């Protein structure tokens, strides 16, 4: 049987032990290149496991909400398929869903971790090179654009979030309207600013903003948000506030999209 005094002594011993070992590890890390890599790898591996556990716990308690959202999404997609079936008269066999549609390859993934407390936010996606993820792929949901893959590991990928002060995406007002550049407003979780839209364009608050498809990263016509207030900037173009559809604080499932023609496009650009 442990007595109260013994427990306190044990805790103090453990605390001092950890303190001394951490101090020794820090010194070792600063003095040995190999040890630096080894310790960094160990720390990252430990952190990844901790993130995984905490995210799993968080997801477990939000399962009902996720299920409801998924059910709603499935319903809407089934309705879309029914509509296309009626228009085309063709049947869409469920066992032949292609990964690639048009020029884009779609890979479903889940979010392992998100950083959302700074001007440079990020996402860790639980799929990596072994799942076919490549650098400079887009991260999307049916509600908008989340970011761009920056680095790819074997099992995980690191993506720069749209909520980065230096990230800009080509966007279009409506399906066939004017094109501008949209970026995060740097303040709110669902606010963005659309710029470079010429002043002569007629705008209506509530119009939907979509991806333009002019970049080789994101496919066209992904809804991003709706137009809010706007004003003329520098006397030539509009600065339009956009309320994004995606809530960045509750992202769980995403789709990684990469353009299969990227190499061909780059080659043409470099000619």
């Amino acid at each position, binding site marked *: 049987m442990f007595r109260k005094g013994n427990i306190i002594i044990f805790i*103090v*011993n453990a605390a001092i032990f950890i303190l001394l*070992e951490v101090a020794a590890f820090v*010194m070792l890390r600063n003095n*040995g290149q190999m040890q630096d890599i080894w310790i960094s790898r160990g720390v990252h591996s430990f952190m990844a496991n901790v993130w995984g556990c905490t995210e799993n716990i968080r997801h477990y308690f939000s399962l009902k909400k996720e299920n409801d959202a998924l059910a709603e999404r499935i319903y809407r997609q089934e309705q879309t398929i029914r509509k296309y079936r009626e228009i085309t008269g063709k049947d869409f066999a469920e066992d032949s869903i292609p990964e690639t549609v048009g020029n884009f390859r779609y890979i479903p993934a889940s979010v392992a971790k998100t950083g959302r407390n700074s001007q440079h936010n990020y996402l860790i996606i639980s799929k990596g090179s072994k799942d076919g993820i490549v650098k400079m792929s887009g991260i999307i949901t049916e509600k908008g654009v989340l970011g761009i893959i920056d680095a790819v590991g074997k099992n995980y990928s690191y993506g720069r979030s749209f909520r980065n002060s230096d990230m800009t995406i080509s966007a279009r007002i409506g399906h066939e309207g004017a094109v501008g550049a949209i970026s995060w407003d740097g303040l709110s979780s669902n606010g963005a600013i659309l710029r470079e839209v010429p002043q002569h364009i007629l705008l209506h608050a509530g119009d939907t903003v979509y991806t333009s498809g002019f970049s080789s990263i994101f496919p066209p016509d992904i809804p991003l948000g709706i137009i809010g207030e706007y004003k003329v900037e520098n006397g030539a173009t509009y600065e339009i506030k956009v309320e994004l559809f995606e809530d960045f604080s509750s992202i769980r499932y995403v789709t990684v999209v990469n353009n299969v023609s990227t190499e061909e496009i780059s080659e043409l650009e470099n000619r």
Partner: protein
Amino acid sequence: MKTAQNFGLMYMLLAIIQILICNYCQFSPLLVLSVLPVMILCLPLSVGTIPAMLIAFATGLAVDWLSEGLLGLNALSLVPVAAVRKPIMQLFFGKDLIDRKDSLSFRKNGFGKISAAILTFHAIFLAIYITADGAGMRPFWFNLARFGISEASGYLISVIVASSLIPDDKK
């Protein structure tokens, strides 16, 4: 009091010997010669776990600092030895020795038990030292061979050191 002073002087002398070993006795990459674990084993039992850990850290750091090795390596390996000193001693010598804060003695505790304790202390130290030194870059067989050779040679030196540090046996 005199015994404590003698022990302190002896302890510092052994730390200097360890520094010399680290600097001038590097015979092979497979051999790690260290008397530090046995120095911790021979600390008087009146020294608690926290002071023992602090002594181990300071000794390890001093050896790292004054020898050509990596700063922090000996300290990292020696602190766990000090942390488990009393439980291991209790395992080999019984609870009475710890409770009475009695000194270790080859005559009273037996050569076999002290040897087993030395081997255990040395094994803990070497396991951490070799793992941290290799940093996951060296093959397992190399680490295993290094551990085996160092454990055997370290044991021989440690027995000599123990006989000089354990006060009862000097009389």
